[in-house]
């Protein structure tokens, strides 16, 4: 039954990929279609309000510039709100202003779609803050990432017409995708008992006669976009493990599919743009293969349990339950963990710090690779980066100029890709090393020896991959951690976006090379294998040593 329920969720996802991928294509192909009738009028009003008179296509630099400027404005306004929220309306629980470095960390975290949280929602965020900053940024950061991925796809599949208009794409992503689906998912979640209210914390006398405070708030509306936008920041400190955020197994399934579907549909959308659906499915297959391998690792490790506890002699057949909820058990927890780190969401329905060593290795490795589906934007685009790298390596081996989708891959693209590939391990490993050189870093570790290394490593990996989950024992609300992870999140998001949009801009301006019998095909099973091989090879070369020092050493010494 446990394995069956995971297979059913994956099967439902497979059924959703084609319709959702097609819908995404209709939204962003900018050709007239049926959805215009419903949404066209709303969009025209929005274009008027924002003063967008000219919807012409932009070059890659202008596109990225527009995105970054918009992000800067959102960050500035949000920072001001967090610093002043104590005195603003919508604060029935009388929560104070947020401290400066924590506000810095929080706005960067939500703007970069990371949602690393060094505050706890129930005690550190007013309802107005939860809505106007957190919920709002969950929409805008997801839309920012998604439209970058779309612009990248346009760049590598179309010629010479620019990458699209950022503001038009940005508004469309909200109006046609995130807002309508978010309202729908919100209502379904409320029906399944996720609270949605503006009343303050309830105080009750419990059955055993003590006073119990029960915080509530506008939870469902945050919960839906948190997953649809692969954001992951919880209303409460324990995120989707909290019974109000995720009250039943079926809400767990809905949250999993919400965060997974759009990411998983992007390769199909790419196939439609490239007029080669098979190419899209090959990318999808490579992602799904890696995903299933990681899911098996987590599930079977958690099911086997923690040997330290098993040897005490009680009935531990249900697996490791430390840090897990009874309603989810091992299967729903393992599936959620693997999806949330694949789709770079970062919400958790169990505590990752308490996972068995190899069970915790899987989410860590998925974030290090950062290509298994991936969240809005960077995930899919990163996989394309490895695809181009794979083509390049094969080209070198057979001694001909590498081509991808009919375009020659040359020095300029490879330099940009090298920057993006090297930046990721650099901003993970260097800060981790620094955190061990100062007591500012080591003081935060709450678990001894090897697992302590994993805690710091996980925090920076999660920041760099814009995931946002954590080995949450880490006492990370200090100036050192707020600032260092804030910077890692910034670099993790924007360096790769700029480099890869540069690649897209460069490829868009190239002449098409006619396909011949000697062309290296990228839409067959062989290429799926090459792609997986490239990802694993690069990943192992960069991260294996530190993985051995952390989770593997913990696994080998755990008796």
């Amino acid at each position, binding site marked *: 039954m446990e394995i069956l329920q995971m297979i059913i969720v994956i099967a439902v996802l497979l059924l959703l990929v084609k319709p959702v991928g097609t819908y995404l294509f209709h939204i962003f192909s900018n050709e007239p279609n049926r959805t215009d009738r419903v949404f066209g009028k709303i969009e025209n009003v929005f274009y008027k309000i924002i003063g967008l008179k000219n919807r012409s296509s932009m070059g890659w630099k202008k596109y990225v510039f527009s995105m970054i400027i918009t992000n800067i404005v959102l960050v500035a306004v949000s920072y001001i709100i967090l610093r002043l929220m104590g005195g603003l309306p919508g604060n029935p629980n009388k929560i104070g202003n947020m401290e400066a470095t924590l506000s810095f960390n929080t706005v960067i975290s939500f703007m970069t779609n990371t949602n690393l949280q060094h505050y706890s929602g129930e005690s550190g965020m007013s309802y107005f803050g939860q809505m106007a900053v957190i919920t709002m940024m969950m929409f805008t950061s997801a839309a920012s990432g998604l439209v970058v991925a779309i612009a990248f796809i346009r760049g590598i599949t179309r010629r010479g017409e620019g990458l699209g208009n950022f503001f038009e794409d940005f508004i469309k992503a909200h109006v046609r995708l995130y807002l309508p689906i978010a309202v729908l998912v919100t209502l379904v979640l409320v029906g399944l008992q996720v609270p949605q209210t503006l009343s303050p914390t309830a105080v009750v006398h419990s059955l055993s006669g003590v006073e119990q405070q029960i915080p509530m708030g506008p939870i469902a509306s945050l919960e839906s976009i948190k997953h649809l936008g692969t954001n992951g920041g919880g209303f409460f400190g324990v995120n989707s493990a909290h019974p109000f955020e995720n009250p039943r197994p079926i809400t*767990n399934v809905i949250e999993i599919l919400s965060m997974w579907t759009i990411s998983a549909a992007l390769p199909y959308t790419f196939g439609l743009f490239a007029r080669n659906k098979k190419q899209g499915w090959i990318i999808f297959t490579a992602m799904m293969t890696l995903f299933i391998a990681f899911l098996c690792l987590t599930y079977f490790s958690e099911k086997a349990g923690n040997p330290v506890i098993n040897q005490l002699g009680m009935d531990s057949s249900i697996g490791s339950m*430390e840090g897990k909820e*009874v309603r989810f058990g091992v299967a729903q927890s393992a599936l959620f963990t693997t999806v949330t780190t694949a789709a770079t969401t970062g919400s958790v329905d169990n505590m990752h710090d308490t996972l068995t060593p190899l069970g915790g290795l899987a989410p860590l490795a998925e974030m290090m690779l950062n290509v298994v589906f991936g969240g809005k934007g960077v995930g899919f685009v990163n996989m394309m980066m490895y695809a181009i790298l794979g083509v390049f390596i094969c080209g070198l081996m057979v001694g001909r100029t590498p081509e991808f989708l009919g375009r020659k891959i040359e020095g300029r693209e490879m330099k940009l890709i090298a920057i993006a590939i090297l930046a990721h391990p650099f901003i993970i490993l260097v800060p981790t090393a620094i955190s061990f050189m100062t007591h500012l870093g080591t003081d935060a570790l709450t678990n001894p020896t090897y697992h302590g290394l994993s805690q710091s490593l996980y925090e920076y990996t999660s920041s760099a991959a814009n995931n946002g989950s954590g080995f949450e024992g880490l006492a990370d609300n200090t100036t050192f951690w707020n600032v260092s992870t804030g910077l890692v999140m910034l670099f993790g998001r924007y360096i790769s976006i700029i480099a890869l949009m540069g690649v897209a801009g460069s490829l868009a301006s190239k002449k098409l090379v006619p396909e011949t019998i000697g062309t290296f095909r990228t839409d067959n099973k062989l290429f799926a294998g090459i792609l997986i091989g490239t990802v694993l090879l690069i990943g192992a070369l960069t991260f294996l040593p530190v993985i051995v020092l952390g989770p593997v050493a913990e696994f080998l010494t755990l008796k």
Partner: protein
Amino acid sequence: MKTSVVSNEQSNGSIWAVALRSSLLLIVVCGIVYPLVSTGLAQLIFPSQANGSMVKDSSGNVVGSELIGQSFKDPSFFQGRVSSIDNDAAGSGSNNYAPSNPELLKRVQESVAQWKKENPEVPFSQVPVDLITNSGSGLDPHISPASALAQVSRISALRTISQDQLKALVTKYTEGRDLGVFGEERVNVLKLNLALTELSK
């Protein structure tokens, strides 16, 4: 590299203006209108669920939320999972002990000793592991059916209710997997204890 040869480009000045106006628009639409409309619809369609699924005892007093676990130290009640925050819902969380952390073993051994003292007649090999491990949220409202059944003999002795009656009660309050397949079978400890107090009257 000349990629930006697209006609009628917006000037950088107007990009700033459009960026500012779209940010303000989206703060209003996504940050204020969307959550408020959602709240309105939720309160209209699902008033009980939207307000925390509160439960009342037989005399109509609200005693908590069926979704939020409570602390039952009294051995004559069914007990829930270990909670490092003592089910204080004002916060949420767990110890976050790694499997290799010696503190984890220490805490588990304390729970085991306590269990053995209160339930001397139950074979230890039949005690499910969810009873002595900390839940993720610290507020887990459920235990596994086996964990409830393991407590029957203790409660039966303390309350002088027959074991069969208690077992029937546990079975009645056992919730199946969602749609018959998702998640795990579970028992809501608060609801079970409410029924237990009724039975004892």
